[in-house]
């Protein structure tokens, strides 16, 4: 909207129906066909979420030509319940990180709505968002870059408390910091309070990043590939202590990853993204063991298995993810899909609920 985009009919409908702002935003009857009732009591939900990044152009085409966009996130809807771990998986460039940032309002939303505890936060300004920041937090991928090298561990973890004025005295701040460091197993905390990030190992650094996110007792946390930079032997430990915190505080957790094998061990529900769209979504075991979308099937078939007796068959798909600048018409996956037929090149398949809670966007499913 910001860039004067042409909006599709469907989107106009959904945004007009959702334009009633306030505490009790309920989807209208016609939306109920697309959006399950779970959206109402979810902690966080996205509806028709879009993010288009404008592309820098040359001088001449900027005058003559039309502005083109990278559709990083294109009409994504999902919800996360209280205490649930929701996985967003996909290849690089599929829009999973951008989706996470949109939910936290770290990036401006092009179109669509984000509801946090039933309230539309997609149009709030920075001032209105500030009190919400203590309820929603993020853990970044690279603990070597996300921690300020000139701050001590204590200052890093205490910063959210100070900004949100959650502790009255210095003693209280120190107490809270020590407590959360103990919870993430940076132990004993006294020994680490006045150290700097470079004195810590990668695993400990990521634990500090986890502590910083959880110190304000958030209700919703996004973790963007939190363990992909860590070695295998320490990965599980960091992951387990993070999940313990999630369970203990009943946090709604979005786990962004490219590693489906790891996602399987972490997530309750899983959404597979491809070129800015969710192509399949459902309970983790259901998606992994009974993948319905050809892309999910290919992703799972491509994962190496730690078993020397396992013999891999032929890969069902070839090629690489197309440029999001110029995504294929119709179903965005049809250029690589082994089952593509004429319908796929023309129309975009809707995300349909095939089994309870299992959503797939594919024309093959509709045909059956």
């Amino acid at each position, binding site marked *: 909207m910001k860039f004067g985009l042409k909006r599709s009919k469907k989107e106009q409908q959904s945004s007009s129906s959702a334009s009633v702002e306030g505490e009790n935003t309920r989807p209208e009857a016609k939306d109920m066909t697309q959006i399950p009732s779970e959206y109402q009591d979810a902690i966080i939900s996205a509806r028709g979420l879009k993010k288009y990044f404008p592309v820098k152009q040359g001088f001449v085409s900027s005058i003559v030509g039309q502005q083109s966009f990278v559709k990083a996130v294109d009409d994504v809807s999902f919800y996360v319940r209280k205490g649930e771990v929701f996985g967003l998986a996909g*290849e*690089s460039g599929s829009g999973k990180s951008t989706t996470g940032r949109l939910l936290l309002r770290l990036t401006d939303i092009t179109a669509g709505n984000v509801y946090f505890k039933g309230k539309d936060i997609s149009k709030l300004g920075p001032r209105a968002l500030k009190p919400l920041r203590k309820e929603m937090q993020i853990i970044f991928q690279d603990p070597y870059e996300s921690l300020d090298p000139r701050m001590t561990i204590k200052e890093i973890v205490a910063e959210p408390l100070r900004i949100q004025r959650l502790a009255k005295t210095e003693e209280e701040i120190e107490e809270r910091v020590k407590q959360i460091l103990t919870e993430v197993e940076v132990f004993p905390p006294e020994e680490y309070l006045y150290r700097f990030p470079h004195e810590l*190992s990668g*695993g400990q650094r990521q634990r500090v990043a986890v502590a910083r996110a959880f110190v304000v007792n958030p209700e919703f946390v996004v973790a963007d590939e939190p363990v992909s930079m860590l*070695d*295998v*032997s*320490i*990965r*599980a*430990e960091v*992951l*387990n202590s993070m999940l313990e915190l999630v369970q203990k505080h009943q946090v709604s957790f979005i786990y962004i990853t*490219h*590693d*489906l*094998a*790891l996602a*399987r*061990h972490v997530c309750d529900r899983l959404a597979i993204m491809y070129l800015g769209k969710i192509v399949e979504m459902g309970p983790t*075991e259901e998606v*992994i063991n009974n993948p319905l979308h050809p892309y999910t099937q*290919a*992703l*799972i*078939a*491509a*994962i*190496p*298995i*730690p*078993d*020397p*007796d*396992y013999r*891999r068959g032929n*890969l069902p*798909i*070839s090629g*690489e*993810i197309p440029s999001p600048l110029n995504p294929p018409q119709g179903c965005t996956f049809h250029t690589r899909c082994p089952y593509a037929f004429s319908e796929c090149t023309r129309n975009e398949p809707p995300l349909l609920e095939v089994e309870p809670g299992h959503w797939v966007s594919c024309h093959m499913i509709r045909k059956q």
Partner: protein
Amino acid sequence: MPVLQVEHLTTNYKTLRGWVQACDDVNFEVEKGEAMGLVGESGCGKTTVALSLLKLLPSAGRIRKGRILFNGNDLVKMSDSQIRKIRWKGIAIIFQGAMNALNPVFKISDQITEAIKIHEPHVSRTQSRERVEALLEMVGIDKTRANNYPHEFSGGMRQRALIAMALAANPEVLVADEPGTALDVIVQAQILKLLRELKDKLNLSMVFISHDLSIVAETCEKLAIMYAGQVVEYGDTKSVFAKPLHPYTQGLLGAFPSIKGERKKLVSIPGQPPDLLMPPTGCRFNPRCPYVMDVCKKVDPKILPVDQSNHLARCHLYPQE
């Protein structure tokens, strides 16, 4: 006779604080047409081994002990001009990070031609042109793309071009340093498949370096597990997976999630890898080992066959002679 035999290889880096023992007493053999996986976490010395094989170490690195026998000739003793003849023709390497290993200002074809020209100066232009096209076709790149620049290639294609370049002078041994890392799973699976096919087709010997046990499980016949600069377990891939002997290997296997089979709780190895400037005395794994005994803290175990098989472990849990 094995194509490549590494005996007691010890490579250290000189720093202001002393010698970093990046690679200590490493032994392995690679037969003709065989792939050996070198597995370990970051900083365990995998890449140092790879660079030692071709004597491409940075200026601070020294091979302080040991022999690297390539077809019976010791590479460690060779002069620079002698080793230059082995590089690419004898042993070729695919470096880590396909994105940065190509020169951005030269066409792909020119970069491959350069490799051919250096090793076979008498080859004519049309001949080398044909060779480049054949190489690209072999790795699955359309020959019309030969005159593209690296930025016009996708990540997977760049990795393919690097493989083509490594094969330009028909090497006997291919060292692949993390060839699948930094690529998406589907592309990674394509690249691994290509490497397996090339290995069978050209009867290549491969040293396959990876941090990912599941990748080597599919690709290699033999495994060497490295920890803190030492090979701690060595044997057939099947026997290592079926019966891991070293506690570190057991820990690694427990920490790996699998997409197949039962959903088990992931167990990690407590602690972190040691500082190689001052590795722990005795067994280097002893501070993290669940079965640690007194002897582990004093005596560095030798890597020895267990139960007279060709499955070796460096651990006091098994009889030391």
